[in-house]
């Protein structure tokens, strides 16, 4: 089972590495969005500090979502996805592998960039730490839930926008607690514990349920 997982994981990563620009553009999108807000709302330190957690999290959401189209689209177009569906391996496992690849290519770089971006928003060290941790736990959830939307909108015209319409409401709990954790960390680091616990709970829930829903969606889209 692990070898199947690893096979799909390595395949997706290898393919993505051959098109490194795709991965890079997502990251630059994140950076640009994050840089736009201070230009729009003013560069006051206090304002930035209040806005920072939410803005960075929303930008992470959007960047993660933009990259979702690539999750299944390429395989769908050249017929690989159909083959994947026909194998005897459990589809949920394969979907999990694809989501993991998506996270490694999109979410993890975001987590790495978060401290830099946090500094742009004048976040104190505690908040920077919380930013990294919350994104670390939260971005996999985004990849997993996003997979459901990507599977449902496979091959549709206007797929990207439709995908955002469907997925963004589902992202809200992660956003609320992720950004909340960072905000609270600026007051008292100890208070962040329940936030992180909830985020971890979401992750566990998503790990178990999302691949099942995504598999069902894939079967529906590919009949």
């Amino acid at each position: 089972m692990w070898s199947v997982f690893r096979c799909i994981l390595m395949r997706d990563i290898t393919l993505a590495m051959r098109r490194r620009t795709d991965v890079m553009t997502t990251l630059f999108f994140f950076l640009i969005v994050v840089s736009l807000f201070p230009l729009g709302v003013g560069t006051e330190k206090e304002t930035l500090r209040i806005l920072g957690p939410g803005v960075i999290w929303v930008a992470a959401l959007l960047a993660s979502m933009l990259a979702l189209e690539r999750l299944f689209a390429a395989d769908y177009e050249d017929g690989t996805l159909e083959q994947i569906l026909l194998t005897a391996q459990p589809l949920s496992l394969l979907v999990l592998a694809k989501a993991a690849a998506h996270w490694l290519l999109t979410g993890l770089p975001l987590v790495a960039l978060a401290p830099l971006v946090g500094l742009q928003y004048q976040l104190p060290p505690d908040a920077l730490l919380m930013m990294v941790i919350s994104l670390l736990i939260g971005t996999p959830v985004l990849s997993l839930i996003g997979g459901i939307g990507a599977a449902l909108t496979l091959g549709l015209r206007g797929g990207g926008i439709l995908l955002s319409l469907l997925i963004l409401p589902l992202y809200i709990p992660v956003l609320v607690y992720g950004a909340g954790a960072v905000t609270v960390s600026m007051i008292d680091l100890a208070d962040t514990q329940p936030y992180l616990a909830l985020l971890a709970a979401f992750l566990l829930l998503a790990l178990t349920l999302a691949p099942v829903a995504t598999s069902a969606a894939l079967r529906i889209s590919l009949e």
Partner: protein
Amino acid sequence: MKINWFHYSSPATFYGLAGRLIPWFAWIALILTLAGLYWGFFETPDRLGGSNPQKEYYRIIFLHVSTAWLSMWLYLVLAAWSAIGLVFNTRLSYMMARATAPTGAIFTFIALWTGSFWGRTSWGTWWDWDPRLTSELILLFLYIGYMALHSAIDDPRRGDRAAALLALVGLVTVPIIFWSINCPDPNQCAALHQRSSLDRIDPNILWAMLTTTLGLWSYSFAVILARVRGIILKREADSQWVRDLVTAESRA
């Protein structure tokens, strides 16, 4: 007498049944809603509440609360039909789900609109990111997402099933979304929206509210049945019974 429980699960037979039921639901809706509103406007005190009473504007409650309850109820109905469709693979279930969505969305919008006006008068603000209001807004997005997904997919079978799956995923996440907005700080939870105080309300107001809700519920039955008839005609256009029906109608 042997009852065929599945007699009406075919679009052809259900079409006729729906047609016969619509006038009943329509009249019940009209009578109950008007009665409820009359009761609410004329038989109730001019003030609502004890310590800090709301003035006459509280009468928005009859429309606001009814549509809010129905918006949530109809989403459950939508999800239920979706689940039945996915499990039993029945065409009609998907059609019923599809018919329910626009009405649910309209009720959600009315709830938000009336809530906004009520909020302006009682809280002093047109909008507040209160958990219930925000969740209602999210509910509107879920309805619209459902309808958007349906219309984006050309193949009716794929569209039905994809939207049904979306509805179920939405159903599971709605409580999570609500609780996350209700308790953004897990260390403490608070809300501006009226805590449910149905037990301390003047009975006249309560009954007027319930009557209006029942009236609007009946309205939703009528409207949804009418819509599903249209959907049935469109989807089953190639079948003989529809062709016969259409030629009969065009001769009439």
